[in-house]
């Protein structure tokens, strides 16, 4: 028996821990290339008549399984959710091309079985109690563990993975990225309605995650991978966590991939925006990684929560208090300033194109307002879901208002 755990052993132990069928397990951090990235999108599967959620994800997955592809499609906790994940990407162009391939493939497969697909962070009028848990042991276990929260978690997020060269850097850069996570909440906010009502928030989805016991942010006093491991072990001893997946943090390390994972975004209405936002996060991480040893200041949890609340409530029209300086800025201004700085130093030749798309997300109040404008014009909840689905259906043409 060798001392070193093989990759297969580690994956198996991780799978058992995630399924709750084995002891708590935290895999070793798999170092990866700084700036590599991956995107996960949780998509809505909709009925083509009513635009209510349709439990057809298993059928769509069967069709997607037959397709040769670099990306993967997997189930999520309820049967009207479909998760897609890109392969490891290295630039905006790669990301944009692959998410477009994903969009057309998923749309085609969904249409074949009579369904429609949509982006968006929360379905405007679905009823949580009508959702169905995906027929898989892991999800049934989650449903048992979390009760109604499992079905309530029929929300649709986008996760961005950014490759980190080592575990300690993942903890450090993760702390930096956490501070800017509210900007991504604002940029992606597109879930103004919840359970058939206008929530008054731009991202109602953001409030749902907070119900889980391990939600929030990584404790600011963790300054190395060893400290993170100790933290995990302490919680595991109490049976609070069993795997990294039990942390519902806004930014968390993902050791098996060698990445940090930004988890706060509503799934954009169009996958093209997902590629742009992922590149924004990637460039921020590269910039932070190139300032070795620097840690963010102003880590008060209340300040983060306030920024988070503001971003979810007001979207791109909200305010953000810079934790390092304590000064308040408009979110749109901060984003524009970031993009200008990052574009000047980025070695990705297509990053300016990503910046243009993000600029589009800042227009007219952002995605949430694009939808609420429809409501103001007399559209019902079903229409809101339809409009979102129609945005997903179209290829993203360049230019202002192209997705709308």
């Amino acid at each position, binding site marked *: 028996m060798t001392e070193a755990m093989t990759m297969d052993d580690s994956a198996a132990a991780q799978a058992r821990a995630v399924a709750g069928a084995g002891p708590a397990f935290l895999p070793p951090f798999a170092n990866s290339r700084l700036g590599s990235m991956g995107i996960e999108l949780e998509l809505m599967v909709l009925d083509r008549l009513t635009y209510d959620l349709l439990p057809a994800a298993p059928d769509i997955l069967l069709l997607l399984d037959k397709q040769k592809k670099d990306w993967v499609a997997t189930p999520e906790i309820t049967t009207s959710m479909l998760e897609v994940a890109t392969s490891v990407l290295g630039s905006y162009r790669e990301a944009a091309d692959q998410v477009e391939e994903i969009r057309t493939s998923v749309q085609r497969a969904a249409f*074949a079985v009579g369904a429609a697909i949509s982006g968006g962070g929360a379905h405007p009028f679905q009823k949580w109690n009508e959702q169905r848990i995906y027929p898989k042991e892991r999800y049934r276990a989650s449903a048992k563990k979390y009760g109604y929260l499992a079905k309530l978690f029929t929300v649709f997020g986008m996760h961005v993975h950014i490759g980190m060269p080592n575990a300690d850097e993942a903890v450090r850069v993760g702390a930096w990225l956490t501070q800017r996570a509210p900007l991504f909440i604002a940029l992606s906010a597109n879930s103004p309605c919840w359970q058939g009502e206008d929530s008054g928030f731009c991202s109602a989805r953001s409030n749902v995650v907070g119900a889980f016991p391990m939600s929030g942010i990584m404790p600011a006093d963790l300054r190395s991978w060893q400290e993170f491991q100790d933290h995990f072990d302490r919680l595991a001893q109490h049976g609070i966590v069993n795997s990294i997946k039990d942390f519902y943090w806004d930014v968390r390390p993902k050791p098996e991939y060698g990445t940090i994972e930004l988890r706060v975004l509503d799934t954009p209405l169009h996958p093209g925006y997902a590629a742009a936002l992922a590149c924004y996060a990637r460039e921020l991480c590269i910039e932070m990684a190139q300032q070795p040893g620097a840690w963010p200041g102003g880590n008060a949890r209340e300040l983060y929560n306030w920024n988070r609340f503001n971003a979810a409530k007001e979207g791109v029209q909200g305010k953000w208090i810079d934790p390092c300086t304590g000064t308040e800025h408009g979110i749109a201004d901060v984003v524009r300033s970031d993009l200008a700085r990052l574009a000047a130093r980025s070695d990705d030749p297509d990053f300016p194109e990503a910046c243009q798309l993000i600029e589009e997300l800042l227009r007219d109040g952002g995605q949430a307002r694009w939808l609420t404008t429809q409501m103001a014009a007399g559209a019902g909840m079903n229409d809101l879901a339809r409009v979102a689905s129609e945005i997903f259906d179209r290829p993203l043409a360049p230019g202002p208002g192209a997705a709308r």
Partner: protein
Amino acid sequence: MNDTATLPLFLFSPLAIIGAGLLLAQMFGVLLQRRGVPRLYGAVAAGLLLGVSGFGLVDNALLSYFQELLNAASALVLFEAGRKMDLAWLWRSRAQGLSLLLGCVLRGACAVALLVPFGVSWSEAAFIASILIAINPVVFTSMVADHNASGVATYAAANAVGLSQLVALVALSVSLAWVRSHGVTEELPFGAQLLHQGGKLLLGAVIALLCYGVYKAASMISRAEAGLRPGILLATLMLDLGLCSVTASSALLSLLLMGLLLRNAEKRENVFQAQLRTVQDIGYALLFMMSAALVQFEQVMHWSVLLMALLLFAARAAVTRLALISGQAWSTHKKNAIALCACSLVSFSTLVVDSSMSNAAYLSDTATRLMQALLALNVLVAPAITWVGLRMAGETHEGSEA
């Protein structure tokens, strides 16, 4: 004092009898549901108890009081069937749409192939086969609504229901023209009959277009928001039914087309339809009446007729499944489920809503007995098979939690 004076007063009111029947249907339904039997069987049980197989309180004579109401109810069910037809999907999905169409053709063909050797004449076989193309929308939609079913198989079967009605109505107009000109009661020559039957369909279609135009105009003039449109829609549906009634045109086709237009012609702002719930309660009433008037055990007990009816019933489901082989988007499991969901069949009177043709007087005794046995079987077993199909697909709400 005469005999009638001793009877309870409510027995003289057809409305009270139907009301009592529906009450029983609901009560039986709840009781059966607690024992794991689909609630819809409450309507079947109540119909058996009060109908011609039971106390005989509800029969065709009594139902004739409500003929126009029944016609309207049947047409509304067809409206719902039309509303579930997604033409864009049927056309652009190619293999899936074609397989559902092929199912219609095969159901008709297999019926002819089985009926002729049984001693039914070609013209009668074609006539019955036309009816057997159709899948019963009452059974399917009521079962779907009762069990909150949704998913790929439910969606495909709903499209199959609508498509089968459309194909059956067209096939029936031809076969009816043939059987009327060559059958037991020779009336006008075939050409004239075809014009007559086709004219009913055509007129029904024209009325649908007209009423749809009225609905669109009313919505536009009033600038009614989505939530306010169901009222306008209901009014135009009544207008459609009324016009079909006075012109003796096909109300079923007309309402089916109204549903079809509403679902498919309106690109935007059509999704207020999600709020429409037209069928669930109508379904209970219709199934109760079908059970009361159509199930006659003495017909079912004739062994050769029963055997033939069973064979036809099974063959319909089998050929529907066969046709689904060409559908590429469904798993084997789902294809089996769709075939089971499409097992139910319709009666002549619920397919052709026209007061002048409320019964199939054109058939020989053999064919009539066979149809009666088929319809009895349909009421007794089709809801259960449909239910099994929905559960097999894993698309009933409670099924997912099992």
